[in-house]
């Protein structure tokens, strides 16, 4: 229980630093995005939806649920489902390793945890820099809300010119209660 609570403040400090670096002289509408890795690809979710980042801990498995629902875990007295994001997106299940973690998010008032391979960064991007996801053939077309290019932060902190494409996820479509909402 204690580990995740120390993780969150650290992330916040990180965020503040990133923002101040980018904010200078720019007043355009911006949003903060948490980026993370799944396999080789970088994804992002809105920072405002994030409740906390916690270490992987095997959740309590549930009977008769889709395989991407890994189970439920105790989040400060609440029973929260944990979703294997890779499987939810139709990929091979993530292989657990030391940097695997759970992003706990608030989706329209419901809490859910998503298993990701590694949290990468917190960046601010201008709304105008977000591009609509092109119509590509995927199993569920609209899970990706948009695409954005960000400069990659290298470990040495040098001004790297490498650009990374981040796929912004539409959390409301990933909610584990989603298919029930549709059925009713």
């Amino acid at each position, binding site marked *: 229980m204690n580990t995740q609570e120390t993780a969150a403040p650290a992330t916040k400090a990180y965020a503040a630093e990133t923002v101040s670096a980018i904010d200078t002289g720019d007043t355009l509408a911006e949003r903060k995005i948490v980026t993370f890795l799944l396999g080789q690809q970088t994804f992002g979710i809105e920072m405002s939806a994030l409740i906390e980042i916690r270490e992987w801990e095997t959740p309590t498995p549930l009977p008769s649920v889709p395989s991407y629902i890994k189970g439920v875990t105790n989040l400060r007295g*609440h029973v929260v*489902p944990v979703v294997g994001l890779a499987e939810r997106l139709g990929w091979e299940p993530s292989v657990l390793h030391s940097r695997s973690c759970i992003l706990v998010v608030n989706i329209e008032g419901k809490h859910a945890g998503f298993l990701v391979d590694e949290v990468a960064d917190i960046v601010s991007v201008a709304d105008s820099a977000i591009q609509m996801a092109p119509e590509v053939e995927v199993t569920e077309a609209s899970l990706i809300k948009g695409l954005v290019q960000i400069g990659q932060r290298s470990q040495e902190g040098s001004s790297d010119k490498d650009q990374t494409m981040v796929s912004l996820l539409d959390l409301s479509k990933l909610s584990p209660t989603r298919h029930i909402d549709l*059925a009713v």
Partner: protein
Amino acid sequence: MSDDFDDIQAIFFEECAEGLATAEAGLTTMAEGDSTAEVIAGVFRAVHSIKGGAGAFGHDALQGFSHRFENVLDEVRAGKIPPTQEVCRTMLLAFDVLTGHVEAAQGLADLPDDTLMVAALEELLAAERAGNADAQAPAIAAPTEQAGGADEFGFLPVVVDLFDLDADPMALGDAAAAPGEHGAQDDNPRWIIRFAPSRDAMANGGEPLLVLRELERVGGEIIAVETGSLPSLRELDPEGAYFTWTLTLPAGVERSTIDEAFDFVAPDSVIQISREEAPAPVVEQVEQAAGETAKPLAPPTAVPSAAKASAPAQPAESKAIEAQQNIRVDVAKLDMLLNLVGELVIRNSILSDRLSSADQQRVELPELARLTREIQDNVMSLRAQPIRQAFSRVPRMLRELCSATSKDVALEVSGETTEVDKSVIEKIGEPLTHMIRNAIDHGIESTEERIAKGKPAQGRLQLSAEQKGARIFLRVSDDGKGIDRVRVLAKAVEKGIVGPDENLSDEEIDNLICAPGFSTAETISAISGRGVGMDVVRSNVEALGGRIEIISTPGKGTAFTMILPLTLAILDGMVVRLAGQRYVLPLSNVVETVQPEPGQLRPVANSSEVIAMRGTYVPVRRLSELFHLPSSEREAEDSVVIIVETDAGNVGLMVDTIEDRREVVIKSLDQNLYPIRGLGGATILGDGSIALILDIDALMVSPSASSKFALKGIAA
């Protein structure tokens, strides 16, 4: 409008709701032929209170209508209008209009069109007056209607502006000007009343002036004022009441009218009522408001401080001793308290887990556990409410449905005092509505059809609530035609809910009506048949951790039973372990536990086993199979079989070990996920890990049939 005003108005509406419930219950009793004076008086008081409050808050339409309704009720109470079936029916209809008016005043609905109803009420009054044309004047107790004009008694009623707090008290003089004409035909002597309000009457809201005005309104006249107890100016408490009044009242005034005037006086007031010429005047101490359950709303003529009088601080002498003291509490605060207590319970068991077993035995910990449990029980009981609240709107709904479908249906209600958690009451309203609509629309036949079938012309709808163990059984049953299985199956196949070749049992077909998107109504009526009905019922009930049972007999009727957990929060459970996971079984389901001896467990067919128990065989299910878990390598002899009680009889449930018995706080899965069949929720154990709570009945009841369309439901 100030917040204060809104707050007081909110209290008024709550009281309206209570008043409407009382009135409806009373009217229904009357319609059934039980028109005792007490019942009639109860209805009268309820409508009277609504009228008074409506006036105080400026809801003129509501006030106007309730006033007319009250007039009729008053005549019924006085025995002038006999409470025949016909009259009762009219009054029930009037009640519906009144409900509409209350809703309109709350801004929940448009103003109902009451012209027809008003006409019907006036007709009742007119018929009564015509019938008594040569009899004496109508009861004096009847509230005067024609404000401003001389009425048949020859006195001028006081025009009281409901908001004019400065109404000139001298105007009362006119009202009392001609009391002598009253009761001229009566041989009884005049009333003599001595009234000494208690010193703190005004502080308690028992304004003596209101009483005097009320008495003067019915012809009272002050003949003496004793000022002997008036202290010197220095000691005078400006809010104290020091005077004693003696009044005379015309002989024709009824005793009950006088008593009514004293309904709201402060305790410790001295009231003596006697007849003038009685040889030795029988001095009676009136027991104020004894047996009076009326809401403390002053009659409208006494309204200058009706708002004040309607404040809850209105202790009448006898009530102050017997009645409970109530306060209104925001439900959100109760919910918060309940959550905190839940956390406290969990922390308590965490603490207990951390201590060594020697420390656990010390007196402090059991004591703490006991206190925690008591707090928990008390908080739970705060939220328990009689299910009557959910049933209360059924009679009205039924009348509307009957008139819309031209069917004649009688309602029988039982078990309405069963107490359940408030959240259950809130959430069963909609399922209940759907089930009743279904019963009337699809179940009960038209009168002609019933007669042709040799059934009683009047249909019957039974609504019952019953508590069995930790569960509530809520049943809606009708004596209609039952579920038409041929049509249901055909429709389900047509809609693709089941395949054309599936072989379904009767029970499975009946359950199809709960499948999403199913509706058999050939014509979509306004009442039901929008294809969401029973589907919504099922999901609502499952969201409550309950389930639905349907029993239908063709030609005889259908019974829908909602089986709900008694409380949504606390469960006495047995913690068991299976394949490394812990599960909680509700203790209410557990009959006994068995450690199977070699040979006691016998295979019957490929996948089923039985256990021999004192000469009988009980079917055994392995929990690992029910949950499709990797089958444990454990020998049956190393496992434990828990005999559980289900609706389908006793079943043995095989698990690895039994760990503990404890109370757990139920956390619903649908808060962040969705309900899962077979699970009643989850709980957080002492070490912070999660254990799933089993719903034994759902787990055992024909898992094949339920999974068939549970999956369909999700796919839809």
